[in-house]
């Protein structure tokens, strides 16, 4: 099996005519005249990213660090993206929905920050509103594994000072997945493997969010060791989907399911997750959220319980594109404690990318963008999904995107399927496996099986990843700027954004549930993804829908399904790691 690529004189794959090479700029489809800058995905040399990821994968095998000076991005010299560094100017909502002001738990980060700044709301008011909901419903949601006391949370909210130096996250209430280290606070990844573990330091992401002024509502439940839905070691499900709070059978999805339930169920305004194979995008889709999995290396993994060295990603689960941008802006960027983040292009102004751009008074996508979709996007959709997908494409066209079917390149299935995590999880957890295999409960086989992977097959897997990344860059992103795809991008480090696009019916419970989809981009395409989804959300209201409240515990008998529920033994968490 080979993948044919055009070669340039230096022997490297030449950039396709319409795609950016080293320092080149896409021609043929000019950006709107009033927007002169280009998104970062056009400013970064894709060959550099191929080379970089090959080095990361090699380092995983060799146990060496990938540093900033070894493979520094060529874009470092000139910057790139829509303007270097954090700029919060556009992060504050111009208008705040009345319903959200009446119930502050409805506010987005952007709205709450604007309300604080304009003196319409105090951080302590927001905290009180959340604590009221927690008091009434957390017993049902079970979104959190650990929380500070109410007194501590209120005191933290009272300490927040909103002034010109504040970030939009000042006083914002967040849920943090329980695999993020939190100094002095239990961090278990919801697994007996980490029972009793209390980190001595904060993860970089948590530290940066704290520095930005966010207040952590608690450590969110998650699929044990970042796989599947949240459950106890005996398989009993705990956390419910916020959209079906009275029926635990419908999964909140995972593994960042506790965060998703907290944000969707209005127990926090936004939250963090991690993704190795769909763990941010899948629960975001399941709970009507906008989840952003950034490019590998864009945000630090330091102080996060690892699943693999090469495909774990931290990212936000948020209520809309702007909130996802604010969250990622606050914690992305180089971290000397995680060499995988060094030598990257600077973090661009994600907030600006997520700001609604208008042309002729109508919301339009910020940069000329071709949205690609695979042939089975429409032909493979069932009767429920097909109209949603057609409406999605229509709405994207309405905001100025070019919409185009892109054929799958030859060997797509073969190469995407070869990029498994087996071996890496075994490597990370072998000491615990030797200690007691029962700690891994129903996830044990996934952690044990790596020891049957031979070195030649591991090399093949890495080569397949490399070939797949090359295939995607040269035979998908030569034809479009973003691509409607799924978790196959996790193994090759490309960014993804999940967002809601309709409502369906769950076949098991018969309950209405949200449906979402996922859009992928070339390396450092976070701006592009945010711009497309921001434009889409400016002309649709799927993201504004909120789930029904749970039936109060006192009337538990009225709930459709409230008995202890064990996750079925055939539960497949393949796309939820």
């Amino acid at each position, binding site marked *: *099996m*080979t*993948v044919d690529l055009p070669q340039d004189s*230096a*022997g*490297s*794959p030449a950039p396709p005519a319409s795609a950016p090479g*080293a320092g080149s700029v896409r021609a043929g489809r000019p950006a709107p005249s009033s927007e002169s800058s280009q998104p970062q995905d056009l400013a970064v*040399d894709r*060959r*550099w990213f*191929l*080379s970089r990821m*090959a*080095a990361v994968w090699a380092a995983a095998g060799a146990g060496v660090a990938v540093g900033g*000076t*070894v*493979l*520094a991005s*060529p874009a*470092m*010299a000139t910057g790139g993206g829509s303007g270097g560094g954090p700029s919060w100017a556009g992060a504050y909502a111009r208008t705040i929905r009345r319903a959200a002001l009446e119930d502050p738990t409805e506010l987005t980060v952007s709205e709450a920050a604007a309300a604080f700044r304009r003196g319409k709301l105090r951080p302590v008011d927001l905290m009180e509103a959340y604590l009221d909901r927690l008091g009434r419903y957390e017993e049902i949601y079970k979104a959190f594994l650990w929380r500070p006391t109410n007194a501590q949370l209120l005191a933290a909210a009272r300490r927040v000072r909103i002034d010109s130096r504040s970030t939009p996250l000042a006083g914002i209430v967040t849920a943090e997945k329980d695999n993020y280290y939190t100094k002095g606070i239990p961090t278990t990844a919801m697994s007996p493997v980490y029972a009793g573990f209390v980190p001595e330091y904060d993860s970089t992401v948590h530290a940066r969010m704290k520095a930005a002024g966010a207040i952590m509502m608690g450590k969110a439940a998650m699929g044990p060791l970042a796989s599947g839905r949240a459950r106890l*070691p*005996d*398989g009993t499900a705990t956390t419910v989907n916020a959209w079906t709070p009275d029926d635990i059978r419908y999964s909140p999805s995972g593994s960042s399911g506790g965060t998703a339930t907290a944000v969707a169920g209005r127990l926090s305004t936004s939250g963090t997750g991690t993704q190795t194979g769909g763990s941010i995008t899948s629960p975001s889709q399941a709970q009507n959220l906008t989840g952003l999995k950034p490019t590998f290396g864009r945000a630090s993994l330091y102080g996060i319980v690892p699943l693999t060295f090469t495909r774990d990603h931290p990212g936000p689960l948020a209520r809309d594109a702007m909130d996802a941008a604010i969250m990622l802006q606050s914690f992305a960027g180089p971290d000397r404690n995680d060499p995988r983040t060094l030598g990257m292009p600077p973090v661009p102004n994600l907030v600006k990318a997520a700001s609604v751009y208008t042309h002729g008074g109508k919301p339009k996508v910020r940069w000329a963008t071709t949205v690609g979709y695979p042939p089975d996007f429409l032909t493979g959709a069932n009767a429920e999904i097909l109209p949603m997908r057609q409406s999605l494409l229509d709405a994207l066209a309405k905001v100025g995107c070019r919409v185009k079917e892109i054929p799958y390149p030859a060997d797509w299935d*073969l190469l995407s399927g*070869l990029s498994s995590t*087996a071996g890496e999880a075994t490597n990370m957890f*072998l000491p615990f*496996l*030797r200690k*007691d*295999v*029962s700690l*891994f*409960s*129903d996830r*044990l*086989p996934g952690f*044990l*099986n790596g*020891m*049957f*992977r*031979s070195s030649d*097959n591991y090399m*093949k*897997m890495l*080569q*397949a990843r*490399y*070939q797949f990344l*090359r295939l995607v860059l040269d035979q998908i992103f030569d034809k479009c700027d973003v691509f409607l795809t799924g978790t196959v991008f996790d193994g090759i480090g490309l960014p993804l954004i999940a967002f809601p696009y309709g409502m369906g019916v769950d076949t098991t419970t018969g309950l209405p549930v949200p449906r979402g989809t996922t859009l992928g981009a070339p390396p450092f395409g976070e701006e592009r993804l945010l711009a497309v989804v921001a434009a889409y959300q400016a002309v649709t209201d799927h993201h504004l829908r909120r789930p029904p409240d749970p039936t109060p515990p006192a009337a538990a008998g009225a709930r459709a399904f409230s008995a202890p529920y064990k996750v079925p*033994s055939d539960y497949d968490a393949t796309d939820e790691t």
Partner: protein
Amino acid sequence: MAAPTPPTDAELDTYIKIRYALIGIDLSTLPEEDPAAPMDQARVMANARSTVRQEVQYSDYVPDQQAHAAVLYPAPFAVWTGEYKP
């Protein structure tokens, strides 16, 4: 030349258990067979047999022997040696 006879489940079990023993993995803390338990030895062994057989299928994938990681010019080696400063 005829292909070797595929190993039986029992032969694979021996291989798997020896591999576990070599690396220091003890399955005895799990029940032998209990569908109600979150995990049991029978399920671990069945899953391992499947994995081992699937691993062999990886051999069907033959990467291009001439494929190489994309290298920027000047090569990273020049950066490492300090000859080239981006």
